[in-house]
């Protein structure tokens, strides 16, 4: 079991309030992802749940038990750190065994679980090595192995993949997702990588300056962002925001159009502009359009290739049912 609730939790460092009163519940078995710009308090929130930081006020409940004052070692949670945080003086085997040894699990059972974890994580050949003799990806696996063997009620991940190269990151992302499907244990995952958030999460929590801007499923956030911040934060390339006449015409202060919800034509369309940079990825093309009179740059994403280059004139037409409207307060207008 691992249902985690935060009730009016706040955190101040000195005089700086990093987390204003915050309420959040993560259901048992859920994969929750915290996203937000750097310094918004994602790690702090995770560390509050872990018990590595003390709450300034409010309560933290795990399975309806008040854990606010309980030390991290007694909360039954496992954490995977960005830096892996392996014990450099112990072999991989001893690293993985460590939490079990501390929990007083008998040797035979320890052995069984180590072997199972090592097999699942492709570490069998490295059990006798020290962390210093492993690659980044292998270290990350050891850190995950160390977390899973003790059967925690929830896993906490703080940007676990950000030190890995792109290819490895994709592989590990899938592995963690599979692990979650298999174990059905609560996982809380901090990242600033959109793709990780969108692909892995059951529930995304978007934070800004310690405030939750929106909580919802990835597609919820994508299709119905609650405000301009979430709209701009989720989706890549980011949404185009247009103010002025085009917005007022539609009864809004600002309208938002995603790059992928815009048609491009070289002959006709709603808005005219000139191509600044066209990025041809093969599968997709990103076109940065200037001089539309709408915004400094209007980004368009079309699938496949299109023969446009710098200086060409193009016409843009938004898909009418994909225009997001926001009021003067930044909130979504239905």
């Amino acid at each position, binding site marked *: 079991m691992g249902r985690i609730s935060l009730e009016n939790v706040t955190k101040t460092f000195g005089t700086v309030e990093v987390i204003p009163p915050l309420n959040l519940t993560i259901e048992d078995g859920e994969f929750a992802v915290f996203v937000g710009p750097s310094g918004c308090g994602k790690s702090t929130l995770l560390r509050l749940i*872990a*018990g*590595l930081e003390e709450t300034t006020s409010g309560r933290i409940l795990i399975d309806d038990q008040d854990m606010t004052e309980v*030390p*991290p*070692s*007694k909360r039954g*949670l*496992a*954490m995977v*750190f960005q*830096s892996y*945080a*392996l*014990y*450099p*003086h112990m072999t991989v085997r001893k690293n993985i065994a*460590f*939490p079990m040894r*501390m*929990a007083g699990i008998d040797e035979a059972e320890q052995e069984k679980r180590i072997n199972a974890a090592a097999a699942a994580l492709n570490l069998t050949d490295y059990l006798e090595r020290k962390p210093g003799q492993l690659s980044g990806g292998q270290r990350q696996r050891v850190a995950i192995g*160390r977390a899973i063997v*003790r059967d925690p009620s929830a896993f906490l991940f703080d940007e676990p993949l950000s030190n890995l190269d792109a290819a490895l990151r994709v592989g590990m992302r899938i592995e963690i997702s599979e692990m979650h499907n298999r174990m059905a244990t609560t996982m809380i995952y901090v990242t600033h990588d959109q793709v990780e958030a969108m692909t892995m999460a059951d529930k995304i929590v978007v934070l800004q300056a310690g405030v939750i801007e929106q909580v919802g499923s990835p597609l919820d956030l994508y299709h119905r962002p609650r405000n301009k911040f979430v709209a701009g934060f989720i989706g890549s390339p980011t949404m185009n925001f247009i103010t002025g006449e085009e917005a007022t015409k539609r009864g809004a202060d600002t309208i938002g159009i995603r790059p992928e919800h815009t048609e491009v034509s070289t002959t006709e369309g709603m808005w005219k502009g000139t191509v600044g940079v066209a990025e041809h990825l093969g599968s997709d093309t990103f076109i940065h359009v200037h001089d539309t009179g709408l915004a400094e740059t209007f980004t368009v994403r079309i699938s496949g290739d299109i023969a446009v280059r710098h200086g060409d004139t193009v016409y843009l037409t938004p898909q009418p049912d994909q225009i997001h409207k926001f009021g003067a307060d930044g909130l979504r207008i239905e």
Partner: protein
Amino acid sequence: MAIVAQTTKFSKIAWPVLAWMVGLLFFFPIFWMVLTSFKTDADAVKPEYLFWFKPTLDNYLNMTENYDYWRFARNSVITSVFATVFTLFVGIPAAYAMAFNPSRATKDVLMWMLSTKMLPAAAVLYPMTFLTKSLGLFDTHFLIIMVLSLINLPIVVWMLFTYFKEIPKDIIEAGKMDGVDTLGEIKEILVPLAWGGIASTALLCFIFCWNEAYWTVRLTTTEAATLSKLIEGNRAPEGLFFGRLSAVSTAAVGPIVVLGWFCQKQLVQGLTFGAVK
């Protein structure tokens, strides 16, 4: 080009020569002391016997037979070992707390600890003497162990703090998440990781304890008297017995020089930090 070649050639010779000279300069008093310890007291002051003399072991025999060298040595070992162990026992948790759970007061506490070293020892000599006498602690092993511990504690905490600072905080936090309490964390993670630093701190603390002379001489008479006291006791009022004094001094610094020699690598490694990575 020629100039560059010449300078390198020059520095290739000059530096070693300079190093040797400095080395010899430092070594000379020790050499002199050892040499003198094999002379009779009479020979020791005669210039004509500067290097050529009839070596004798009398000073050493005299020292062990009449001055009870072994009791002083035993006291030195007991007080230094226990003081070092006690200092680490207190210093490791203290440094751990300050390195990994710093508060706003941590910097001040560290400074305050160091500031205690700035108090001239002589200023508290009389209070200390009276106090220990009236408490019945004068000339006891317990007192000397405590005094040695307390005077070394600030420097030990400082050194350990510097070593512990080198350990990534994440590793300590990972330990917490893995279910160890504070004591377990110190035992299972901190001490094994900072082993090099702790060993060199211990060694240095031991050397300081062994060489301490101000308090050990003044707060002891016989029971807890250390080798420092033995050396001091050979300073006779009617003149110095150089031969005897040298023998006692040689026997007093001998063990520590040997210990230092064997732990050289450890010391250097510890003192240059970065032993964790």
